[in-house]
């Protein structure tokens, strides 16, 4: 605190105190700033598609050269976001990970991580598109085609859908049998050419290349063949079951596969 020195005080002279407050009749600038902010917000919504394309291009080029990784935290800065619907997710590894295949099949089976690694592996490289807007370009996923596991289990003729469950204890997903048999649907063991990390749903996650990323269930632990599609976790909360990128959820993103 500065000591007060009356001679040097810059405050208006005491005589000023007799005058009324000068703001009483001033211009309503506050209202204009408020309305201006609202107007800019509305303009932002209208101009968003254009602005977003520009920013994604710009931040995409910058983030590659940014050693701090801070650009990844910006909206449209690229990179994955972590979403989990539960408080905590148990860790599973070679010793205790199991994937069961059951339901309307002739040969129910339980796979260990080693079993899955011993099967033919497929590597796919596509963009990842989240339904909330972020997109990560050209991300490699590698693993066993879901069709291979279904074929090995012997799907019965009464079956029409596949339901997925996860060892986080809450998340579920589902696909029609036709969707599940597509060649770009994997039980993924690797992501970005590394074993799928716990944060990204490891050791094993689903990868449904042509659909929004919520279909690619993390921490996959169960594949159950059913008669009909049952909506999964987010689908019971309003998201589309047939989640084709660019043709669902009211979005028009470029298709990913």
């Amino acid at each position: 605190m500065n000591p007060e020195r009356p001679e040097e005080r810059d405050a208006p002279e005491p005589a000023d105190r007799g005058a009324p407050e000068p703001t009483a009749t001033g211009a309503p600038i506050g209202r204009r700033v408020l309305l201006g902010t609202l107007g800019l917000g509305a303009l932002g919504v209208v101009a968003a598609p254009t602005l977003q394309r520009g920013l994604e291009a710009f931040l995409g080029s910058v983030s590659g050269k940014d050693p701090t990784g801070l650009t990844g935290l910006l909206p449209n800065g690229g990179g994955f976001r972590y979403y989990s619907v539960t408080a905590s997710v148990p860790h599973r590894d070679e010793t205790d990970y199991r994937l069961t295949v059951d339901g309307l099949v002739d040969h129910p089976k339980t796979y260990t991580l080693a079993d899955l690694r011993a099967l033919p592996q497929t590597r796919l490289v596509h963009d990842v598109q989240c339904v909330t807007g972020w997109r990560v370009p050209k991300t490699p996923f590698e693993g066993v085609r879901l069709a291979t596991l279904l074929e090995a289990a012997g799907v019965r003729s009464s079956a029409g859908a596949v339901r997925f469950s996860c060892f986080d204890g809450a998340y579920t997903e589902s696909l029609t049998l036709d969707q599940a048999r597509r060649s770009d649907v994997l039980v993924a063991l690797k992501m970005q050419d590394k074993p799928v990390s716990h944060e990204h749903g490891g050791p094993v996650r689903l990868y449904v290349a042509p659909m929004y990323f919520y279909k690619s269930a993390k921490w996959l632990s169960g594949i159950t063949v059913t008669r009909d599609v049952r909506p999964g976790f987010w689908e019971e909360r309003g998201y589309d079951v047939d989640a084709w990128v660019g043709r669902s959820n009211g979005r028009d993103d470029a298709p990913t596969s």
Partner: protein
Amino acid sequence: MPPRVDAGHPVAAPARVHRFTRAERWVHRTTAALMGVCVVTAACLYIPAFAELVGRRELVVRIHEVAGVLLPVPVLMGLASRAFRADLGHLNRWGPHDRIWLRAALRRDHRRKSRPAAKFNAGQKTYAAWIAGATLVMLGTGLLMWFTHLTPLKWRTSATFVHDWLALTIGVVLAGHIGMALGDPESRRGLRTGLVSREWADREHPLWRP
């Protein structure tokens, strides 16, 4: 006319002057609490490290939505208070001295004579108007993201874009707001107790007539 108070010259005038009523203090307190909940839950939804720590995405989303919708409520209820309405008037109306203050602020001129202010200075007025507008934009875009099937579906992407970037901006501005409050204990006391020292009032708000 109240006499001036200078350090070392005790006078009969009350040492503390009334700045905010109880209603006004509660409007600020509840708004700050709701804004705090919005910011913390937003961080848990958005920043990967916090999201991994907290998880429970659906619950966090629900809390964020409820706090966001309630955010304008304290101000709306405050409209019942005459003192609060009067202060909104003070915040709204700009006099010539506010332009002087703003120009000095832009030139980083900290001399007192170049920073004339009545009850609120031009910076506080700008902040109040902007944060009110920004809150309404966040509310609007937030509702578009929440009730996705009520609006043309394409709007959601655009609303998300505005919501994300404005959230970042609000975070920075809010940090500035809190930082300035941390640097001025007497102004915090004003919002905590309703009273400020006359010395502070004369120094920071020389044109204010408490």
